[in-house]
């Protein structure tokens, strides 16, 4: 296990690193990002620390963006130290960067503007072709610092891989401290967490609406599980499903107008469809077995779910218009918590094997599966909006942490704030 970002920080900017630690400690303990191994065909990128401006926020933009790219598993950061530290295009000596094995180079600078604002300029250069692939400047306030770094990472990632980046997206998760539960929304790197619900009773199963403007979740504040939909803009919320019995496992339909929920109002946990205002209730599954954890396919035509109708919990699918469910998973005795990739081609779910609960990737067309993780207590997989990684919860050292894993399983990163118990993650737009 090598902690790449820390190693790089020590090599490249020891002074920045020290300043960053001392600056961020009073606010909160920093999240760790650890990358275990990685793919063979990574794109090699050198990120030259941007020329700094007095009073600029910490950590450095190249540190935040570099961590993002590193975590993706598709990009490898090349040592950018040395005498050649270009800021402007004219200063770049491509030969030196080719010699370091870099295929792309990122340079830039931060300039202080009147009124406490900053101008950030950066360029992404193709080292082999000696051309500029992208170049942007941003006029930002200090509180847009991290967002700017994520945007730079998104530009670099998309230009180099052809796939949109997800570094500017957000995640939701539940944090437990003692008997207090908080539903939080954070940046995709786990930083910048903001609490949107606080409760003395458990909160589970958050999910972003397709437009990212609302969250649906299950709260136990009414002494039983009830489904709430909450606006992230103004914090207002309403009970969408509060029927007799338990109300849980909400999932947004792709149109953002309907939810699949699990109710026990008629008999054992069954899947229903309901409008987000609580109207239009229709039952989707039948029978006395457990049907739960519904999730819509991206086209809205199919609902995947967990059922014990075959004797053990397995993943099934059913047409969103109803009908006879078909079994999807066959190997193993415990396959639960399905998530579907944005292109509809893969399922991720939790599979138990010999007492270990791991994230499994399942290609729907071929039925081929791959175990993505080597931890033992994994839960709640959720795809990145670009489908290139899976976010999940696991347990390490007796506390819940969040992790991401690339689809090849070779790059795993941990987003974990020290001293807290994080669980129930969901990746949003």
């Amino acid at each position, binding site marked *: 296990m090598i902690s790449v970002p820390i190693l790089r920080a020590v090599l490249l900017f020891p002074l920045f690193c020290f300043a960053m630690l001392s600056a961020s400690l009073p606010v909160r303990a920093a999240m760790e990002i650890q990358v275990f191994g990685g793919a063979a065909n990574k794109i090699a990128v050198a990120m030259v620390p941007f020329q700094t401006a007095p009073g600029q926020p910490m950590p450095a933009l190249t540190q935040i963006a570099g961590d993002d790219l590193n975590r993706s598993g598709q990009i490898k950061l090349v040592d950018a130290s040395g005498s050649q530290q270009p800021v402007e295009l004219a200063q770049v000596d491509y030969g030196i960067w080719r010699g370091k094995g870099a295929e792309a180079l990122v340079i830039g600078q931060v300039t202080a503007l009147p009124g406490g604002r900053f101008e950030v300029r950066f360029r992404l250069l193709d080292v082999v072709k000696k051309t500029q692939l992208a170049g942007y400047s941003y006029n930002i306030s200090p509180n847009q610092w991290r967002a700017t770094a994520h945007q730079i990472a998104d530009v670099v990632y998309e230009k180099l891989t052809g796939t949109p980046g997800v570094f500017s997206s957000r995640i939701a998760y539940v944090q437990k401290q003692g008997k207090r539960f908080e539903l939080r929304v954070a940046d995709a790197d786990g930083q910048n967490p903001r609490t949107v619900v606080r409760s003395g009773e458990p909160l589970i199963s958050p999910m972003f609406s397709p437009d990212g403007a609302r969250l649906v979740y299950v709260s136990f504040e009414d002494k039983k599980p009830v489904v709430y939909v909450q606006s992230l803009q103004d914090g207002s919320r309403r009970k969408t499903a509060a029927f007799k019995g338990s109300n849980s496992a909400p999932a947004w339909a792709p149109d953002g107008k309907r939810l699949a929920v699990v109710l026990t109002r008629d008999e*054992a946990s069954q899947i229903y469809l309901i409008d987000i205002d609580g109207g239009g209730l229709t039952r989707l599954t039948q029978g006395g077995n457990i049907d739960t*954890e519904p999730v819509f396919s991206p086209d809205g035509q199919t609902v995947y779910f967990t059922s014990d109708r075959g004797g053990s919990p397995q993943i099934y699918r059913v047409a969103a218009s109803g009908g006879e469910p078909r079994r999807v998973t066959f190997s193993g005795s*415990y396959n639960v918590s399905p998530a579907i990739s944005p292109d509809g081609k893969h399922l991720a779910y939790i599979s138990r094997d010999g007492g270990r609960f791991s994230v499994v990737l399942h290609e729907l067309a071929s039925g081929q599966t791959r175990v993505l993780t080597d931890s033992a207590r994994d839960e709640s997989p959720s795809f990145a909006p670009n489908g290139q990684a899976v976010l999940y919860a696991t347990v390490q050292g007796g506390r819940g942490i969040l992790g991401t894993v690339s689809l090849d399983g070779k790059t795993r990163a941990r987003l974990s704030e020290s001293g807290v118990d994080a669980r129930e993650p969901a990746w949003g737009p």
Partner: protein
Amino acid sequence: MNKIFWPVLLALTLSACGTTGGTQATVEDRTGGKTDATATTAGQAGSDAKPTGGVAETAALSGTGVAGSSLNGKQLEGSGSYSGDPRKNPASPMSTRSIFFDYDSFVVKDEYRPALEAHAGYLLSKREARVILQGNTDERGSREYNLALGQKRAEAVRKALALLGVSDAQMEAVSFGEEKPRNEADTEEAFAQNRRTDVVYADE
């Protein structure tokens, strides 16, 4: 039946008390209350009277064998001068508020029949009374799937009460899944304490 039932129940509730350390809410307090009561009875019955007051809970734990042998069912039923809420009478089977389940099981064990009959009797006599059956599971596996498993445990108790004549309108079966464990330890003993349905009255 009763002679087997009581020592088993006593052992269950006592062991449940000993390991929780009062971390959980309302249901816990009731079990705690019961333990105090039985410890007092044991003292009156002439066994070691030392464990009183704050020490009573821990003392009763280590002395389960003694307390169990001095507390037969007849003695408790014969004491019948309890004048408070019948649901809280430690001598009544209604003081059993937790139905424990075996691993991966949703079958209400026979030993809980007297308790369920007593609760059914109360609900049939008081039509305005409402009971909430709260199913729970251990922490292994998916939270939502465990919520559904906890619901099955709550439903099992609801169906048992319905067979005894209790109206559906008086009952609500809900699940806490793995979210509100009575014992948070990562042990088989803790898991066993968390696989249960709690019987909670709406007016309590």
